């Protein structure tokens, strides 16, 4: 008898509950501009992000232009959940988990296409574009077993909705509406996705790459970090335009940070600053000609944002650059890796040669071999990787620029801060992150930001 002494044998060691999850408030001291490195490294935090951020928030899943016809679909990710976004026969859009409810195999292996049905390779379960189970190989045996097909369709995504051609989905049935979720960011989104009456479209394909970084380093960069450009991208800018990045820190009076619900946009009002880095004068001309028309439709301020030095992240993991026209999602792949999906967006009514110039321009600058993407990727990889150090990980990081830059007396929607060299948006991003991580349901997520826009705009 191995347990003859009568003591209970210790058969399993249980890992203590991770302190970081229990003490989320200790991770961020945003008023002091401090934050923990654990948020970029801790596996339990990552798991909780999957549940409370990615299985809860509205996430970008497709552009309307990718799926114009019934049966058109894209395969994409919501967190690490693979989903199919499918145009229906009535023109509506539905989403489903890309997994067979029988034995779990993927039912669609293509990135996008047109389908009459999705048939699982394993046992021939066949699903309509509405997700319903239509039949199986050897269907008689299921009929003999009394199986009810209506109970075994593809698992639906809870809600799908779109704004200005951008399709979003949420896996949480209790999520607020997309209009509520985007809130006052819609005002600024119009400056890019409604600058021209025809709206925008994605052109070319999706360019994918893997970066060994935490997803939040990418998101926080685009939410508000123009600061890095003057340093990180100096050589890239000199190669592309023959000079350094504009010294935007010297003219804070003409630029802003704005944020709402954790989404953020840092922008200048120089109309073409981002676009200039593509090195195509015809594109600048296109924007300068368009700007007065945008001013008529959307007002002076937004007309000056159409290609300006700026960047935006829609919480949690979708970003874009006006002027450079790259649109991207940073799909999390564990705490130390992302799968980056990027597209080029253009105004639908733009001339074909203008569209082609933008497509080439995004490839030159923001693709895996693009001059700026390479700069960013290495920074984010080592910002992540250094946190492997046990002692290193105990040290705080600084995030304190732009305290006392809040602009209270303004008609601009959202939370407005003066000067785009700022970390106000990053702090708002992490505040939203913390609010969601602490809340066990949408009902308990604090509503910090008061919308100025009406719901149904």
């Amino acid at each position, binding site marked *: 008898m191995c347990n003859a002494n009568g003591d209970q044998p210790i058969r399993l060691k249980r890992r203590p509950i991770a302190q970081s999850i229990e003490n989320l408030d200790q991770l961020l001291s945003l008023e002091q501009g401090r934050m923990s490195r654990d948020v970029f490294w801790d596996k339990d935090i990552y798991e909780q992000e999957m549940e409370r951020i990615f299985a809860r928030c509205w996430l970008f899943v497709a552009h309307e232009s990718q799926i114009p016809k019934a049966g058109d679909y894209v395969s994409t990710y919501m967190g690490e959940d693979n989903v199919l976004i499918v145009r229906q026969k009535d023109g509506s859009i539905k989403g489903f988990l890309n997994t067979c409810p029988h034995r779990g195999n993927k039912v669609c292996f293509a990135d996008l296409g047109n389908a*009459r*049905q999705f048939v699982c390779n394993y046992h021939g379960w066949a699903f309509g574009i509405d997700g319903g189970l*239509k*039949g199986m*190989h050897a*269907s008689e045996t299921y009929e003999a077993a009394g199986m009810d097909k209506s109970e075994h369709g593809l698992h639906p995504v809870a809600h799908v909705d779109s704004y200005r051609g951008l399709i979003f989905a949420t896996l949480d049935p209790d999520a607020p509406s997309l209009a509520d979720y985007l809130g006052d960011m819609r005002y600024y989104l119009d400056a890019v996705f409604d600058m021209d009456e025809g709206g925008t479209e994605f052109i070319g394909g999706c360019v994918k790459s893997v970066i060994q970084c935490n997803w939040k380093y990418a998101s926080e960069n685009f939410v508000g970090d123009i600061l890095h450009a003057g340093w990180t991208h100096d050589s890239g800018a000199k190669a592309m335009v023959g000079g350094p990045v504009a010294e935007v820190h010297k003219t804070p009076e003409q630029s802003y940070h704005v944020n709402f619900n954790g989404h953020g946009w840092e922008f200048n009002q120089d109309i073409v600053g981002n676009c200039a880095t593509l090195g195509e004068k015809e594109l600048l001309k296109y924007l300068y000609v368009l700007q007065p028309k945008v001013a008529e439709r959307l007002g002076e301020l937004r007309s000056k944002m159409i290609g300006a030095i700026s960047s935006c992240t829609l919480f949690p993991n979708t970003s874009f650059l006006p002027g450079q026209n790259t649109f991207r999602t940073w799909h999390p792949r564990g705490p130390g890796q992302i799968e980056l999906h990027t597209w080029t967006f253009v105004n639908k009514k733009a001339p074909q040669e203008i569209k082609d110039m933008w497509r080439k321009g995004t490839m030159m600058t923001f693709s895996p071999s693009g001059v700026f993407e390479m700069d960013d990727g290495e920074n984010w990889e080592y910002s992540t990787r250094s946190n492997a150090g046990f002692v290193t990980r105990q040290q705080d990081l600084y995030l304190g620029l732009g305290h006392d830059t809040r602009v209270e007396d303004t008609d601009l929607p959202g939370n407005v801060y003066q000067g785009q060299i700022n970390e106000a948006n990053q702090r708002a991003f992490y505040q939203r992150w913390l609010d969601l991580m602490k809340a066990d349901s949408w009902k308990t997520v604090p509503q910090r930001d008061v919308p100025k826009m009406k719901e149904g705009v």
Partner: protein
Amino acid sequence: MSQPILLLRKADLEAGKVRKVDVNGCALAVYNLDGTFYATQDGCTHATASLSEGEIVDDECIACPVHDGTFHIPTGQPMSFPCEHAIRTYKVIEDGEDVLVDLDQESDAAADAI
């Protein structure tokens, strides 16, 4: 040859479309391929499925709505995985504006193939 049975009026089925018609308890899929009418059994020979809910592809094949296997409509022959067994065809008789079927005879194309 049995008495031909009325399936539908020509105007009731536009070109490129398929429709299910029940005749004496027998479910048929009736097709209009560019103005010529055809009829086959409606049930797929592979698994439980109604071919009339499928789509006409490659001009003269029916794609099953369940596994996307195809049959050649004029002859009933299986054309692609997972279909292995031909579907039954029926002789269609066009009489003015009427489309009729003879349930005892195969289609002309199928009969020729045999």
